[in-house]
């Protein structure tokens, strides 16, 4: 495959950033959800 380095960086960075964002959002959410009263969480 031509330009493999460029293509690998694009795919690698994009999916790493998305996974990092998902993990950060989940961990922040779980951390806060254990401290906030259920009445303030309409989705529960």
């Amino acid at each position, binding site marked *: *495959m*031509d*330009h*493999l380095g*460029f*293509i690998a*960086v*694009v*795919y690698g*960075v*994009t*999916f790493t*950033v*998305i996974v990092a*964002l*998902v993990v950060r*959002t*989940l961990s*922040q*959410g*779980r951390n*806060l*959800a*254990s*401290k*906030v*009263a*259920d009445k*303030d*969480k309409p*989705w*529960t």
Partner: protein
Amino acid sequence: MNEQTFNARVATPTTRLIGAMAIVSMAWVVIGGLIVTPKDVDQGDAVRIMYVHVPTAWVAYLAFIVTALASACWLLSRKHSMGFDRVAGASAEVGVVFMAMTLLSGSLWGRITWGSYWAWDPRLTTTAFLLVTYIGYLAVRGLGGSLEQRARRSAVIALLAVLEIPLVHFSVLMWRSLHQKASVLSGDGDIKMDGSMLTTLLVGVIGFTCTFAWLVLHRQRVLAMQDAMQMTQLDAALRERASESADRVEGLK
């Protein structure tokens, strides 16, 4: 001391379904984009960047439009529900990340096809300006004040900032640009693209859109809990201050 325990769940069946759809679509994009789809006649393998570049750009546009719509709903609604403001903030945060990824992938693609990582081209420049505008929007959201003050000032900025999107999108038509014109949404209905390439691109758009929806739903829940904690701490501080004042008055008697 007995510490109260609360339900630590943030996900719901809907967000789980959206997440599963995003994972399946993303797997398709990686396999389809890197292995299944053919090389482009002109660009060769560099076209594989398109399966990531176009969906991230689409999600960034979508995110900023959602921010503007949610801001308009906040301003126009009688109750000024803070839910609208949180959706606007969450969507802008996700949009900024996807816009930055669009610029990065575009820069690397440009290095292959144009021989340069960056050019002061109308599309590139207006896109960079859009990114800076929304970084500014997030900075304004971080300023002090009440939740209502935050919502009002950021809503006004969001409604002004969204006007840049047509400028970015049509910059390739209005000015001479290195950036190619729209291939799929060209308007004439004639899409000059191999079937597997088009399918992978569309699955990418669906997958990245699901990822965006999942992130915004979860992030606005995080913001809701942060706001709730802020209000609880404020209430506790006010109660403490009131109790101190009452003790002082009692001491004076």
